[in-house]
């Protein structure tokens, strides 16, 4: 019986699957349901200091190989959301609070809030592809450095930086996060994309441009995880298009210590978590591996 536990820079997971940020992460009840379905931890919707309405609908459009979304970081604000984190803690669900802001002060403020509420780790969303002020952070490594450093100096839980694929050199950005003290990175957030309805000629999303997720981006996620995990010492969490256990294994082999799952829930509902966990277990078992770490980054040797 292989051991599925993973230690992510101090964040202990009973298996390597997590819920990705922004998917179902608006209420403790849904996140609890996700945890019951098998996810070892949940990442919340990205929360800002103030309540935020986000963009108007359509905020999501299905395309052939995935989804494009531009929610616009709608969220109830940190004060209202604190309650959801505390409820999750009652249910003993390991929770990673995703936070976003435009500068390091507000990031620090948010981090302190969610840590106090009981978050087991904090994911910094510096990579939302379609919100002014947030997408820029991961494009400016000195700003990113400041944000991570500031958050790190006021918190004691693990800090995870969520990276964007919409940059020329993701390794360069990841290194800045590492140097600034990030305990782990998540790769990747969505890829900037767009869909136009051809009968009307209209961009479908109210925000026109959004972020592509789902099967389409898995090969991009594999590449990013591979590149980053070879260059960094801190753990990488793989994210992007994981839709079956084989995809999860591919990301682990590429160098991810754990995987996040978002869009696939649309295709397979919450059963996806158990499907992936069983798949990973069987994969390890069949090949005589004892623990998940045994296969993390195995592809690097070639």
């Amino acid at each position, binding site marked *: 019986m292989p051991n599925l536990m993973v230690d992510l820079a101090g964040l202990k997971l009973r298996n390597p699957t997590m819920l990705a940020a922004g998917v179902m992460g608006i209420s403790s009840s849904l996140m609890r349901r996700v945890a019951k379905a098998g996810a070892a931890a949940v990442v919340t*919707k990205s929360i800002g200091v103030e309540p935020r309405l986000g963009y108007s609908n359509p*905020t999501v459009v299905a395309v052939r190989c995935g989804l494009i979304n531009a929610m616009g970081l709608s969220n*109830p604000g940190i004060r209202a959301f604190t309650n959801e984190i505390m409820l999750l803690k009652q249910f003993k669900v390991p929770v990673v609070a995703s936070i976003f802001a435009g500068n390091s002060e507000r990031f620090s403020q948010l981090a302190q809030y969610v840590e106090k509420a009981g978050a087991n780790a904090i994911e910094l969303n510096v990579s939302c592809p379609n919100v002014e002020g947030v997408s820029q952070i991961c494009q400016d490594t000195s700003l990113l450095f400041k944000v991570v450093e500031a958050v790190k100096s006021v918190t004691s839980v693990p800090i995870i930086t969520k990276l964007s694929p919409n940059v020329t050199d993701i390794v360069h950005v990841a290194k800045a996060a590492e140097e600034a003290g990030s305990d782990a990175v998540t790769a990747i957030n969505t890829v900037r994309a767009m869909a136009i309805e051809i009968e009307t000629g209209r961009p479908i999303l109210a925000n026109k441009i959004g972020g592509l997720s789902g099967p389409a981006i898995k090969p991009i996620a594999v590449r990013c995880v591979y590149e980053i995990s070879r260059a960094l010492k801190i753990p990488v969490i793989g994210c992007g298009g994981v839709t079956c256990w084989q995809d999860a294994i591919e990301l682990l082999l590429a160098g991810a210590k754990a995987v996040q799952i978002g869009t696939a829930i649309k295709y397979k509902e919450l059963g996806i978590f158990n499907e992936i966990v069983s798949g990973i277990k069987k994969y390890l078992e069949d090949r005589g591996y004892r623990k998940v770490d045994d296969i993390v980054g195995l592809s690097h040797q070639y």
Partner: protein
Amino acid sequence: MTLLGSPISIDKIRIVKIIKEKIEVTGIKSLFFKDKLCYDANPGQFLMVWVLGVDEVPMSLSSIAINNLSSITIAKIGDATNKLHSMTLGDRFGIRGPYGNGFKLIDGKALIVGGGIGLAPLMPLTKELIKKGVEFTLIAGAKTKATLPFKDTINTLQKNHEVCVTTDDGSYGTCGTTTDLVEDYLTKKRFDMVYTCGPENMMWKVFQIAEKCKTLVQASLERHIKCGLGLCGHCVIDPLGLRICKDGPVFSSEVLREATDFGKHSRIPNGRKIPIGKVKTFK
């Protein structure tokens, strides 16, 4: 399961043309259109209606594939519904879906309770029940005569079914609320299922009465819908973590009993949970 939404998946937006329109009453209008994917819809399922350049909002199917046409019936509330009301024959809007679970048909005898625009998903339900030979009584309520939609259909149903109309001011049918009548019916007769849609406080009262009378309920709930795909979580009902758009919109008694949000709390578009009375609703 098709892993990859193919171009003809229900999630793909289809642009449809208004082929027929019908003003039900002032402020409530039905728009008819042709869409193949709606042919197999269940009563209680809804569409995401893309009002070009304005918004994308959920709308129940108020008729399904009658002479190949299906319809939505819109209460005029705000930007999107105003725009839909301003549209006429030949105008276009986008749809995706049908989404959600819809009502489960039962055997036996049904009580159908609709309030105002909440009657919309119940109209195709009556059609299906008739097809299946299920006996039913319909209670249709509205504030006044001037706000009761579907009068034609209701009148037609009256010929072969027990139908009670109530208005708050007695301007049409009996004077009173649907819930008064529900209490009457459920204590006097045996029903195998209550189907209800309408303002949430109405549905909540119907459910309480039905519980007392040990009768099962299927209620179609409403919350703010963003993605309609079961992903964003905005339409959640605590504490079970049920999504209106995917696990609902129709929930049965077993679930309603545990759904403490029901009748009490809702979430506003930014995701904050507030007491239901404070939510601006369309009804």
